[in-house]
């Protein structure tokens, strides 16, 4: 991704800052044309993704770094969606192991990945080459569907799960 992002935020892995990021994402999403309900869900998905980095990537350490970049997607000269990329330097995990849990199993936790996939059109988890993980999410204007193009790859360009 060579083009500069439309929005870039760097934050520490301290959950105290999540509220500010989700407000930013919600506000901007509404401003560019997402309906209120979708903007709230986009903010929720970003919030969940950042919380997962803090919880599982940095194991609740608050001094890790997280980078959030948002790219505008245009089609035929008009805004058509966002590509949102979140990167960290935390613990690496096999992308194929990042799964939502069975929703029939009613227990606390494990819902964040489900919500991200439910809200976004595309969800891609990758290992970064050096350290940490990269999550790329695409949300298209007018779409209210669960992610269908979800892929998981590592830095070697490995496989894609449906």
């Amino acid at each position, binding site marked *: 991704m060579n083009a500069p992002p439309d929005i870039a935020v760097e934050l520490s892995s301290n*959950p*105290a800052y*999540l509220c500010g990021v989700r407000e930013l994402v919600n506000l901007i999403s509404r401003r560019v044309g997402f309906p209120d309900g979708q903007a709230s869900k986009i903010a929720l998905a970003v919030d969940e993704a950042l919380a997962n980095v*803090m919880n599982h990537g940095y194991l609740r350490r*608050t001094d890790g770094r997280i980078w959030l970049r948002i790219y505008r997607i245009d089609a035929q000269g008009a805004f058509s969606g966002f590509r949102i990329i979140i990167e960290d330097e935390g613990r690496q995990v096999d992308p194929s192991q990042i799964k939502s849990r069975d929703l029939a199993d009613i227990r606390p936790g494990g*819902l964040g990945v489900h*919500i991200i996939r439910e809200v976004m059109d595309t969800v891609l988890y990758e290992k970064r080459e050096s350290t940490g993980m990269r999550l790329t999410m695409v949300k298209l204007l007018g779409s209210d569907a669960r992610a269908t193009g979800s892929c998981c790859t590592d830095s070697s360009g490995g496989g894609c799960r449906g």
Partner: protein
Amino acid sequence: MAEKGPIVVNVRQIDGAAVVAPEGEVGYHEAPTLRQALREAFDRKPARLVADLSGVTYMATPGLATLVEALQISKRTQTPLVLCALSGRVRAVFEIARLHTVFTIAEDLQSALSPKA
């Protein structure tokens, strides 16, 4: 370890029921405060526990997880748990997580306190 988030959780007794009413956003940072309030309310052995969510402006999965924990305590202690007054935004999160059918959800506090709830 991060500190607990700053939300206000009001707790009161109405006709033997404990009414736990968080105000503000319940995300990863704030959920532990709600969890503690719910546990303390269960410890007082109320006839029922009502989580009044009318003041909740945002809820992420840590908030849901906290309420699922409360549901488990509710079943273990046989103390009815009723959620009430969910905003559209909060209800949407329950629906995405498919938890709206798992909880007893009342329209408002009065309905939640009714023996029929």
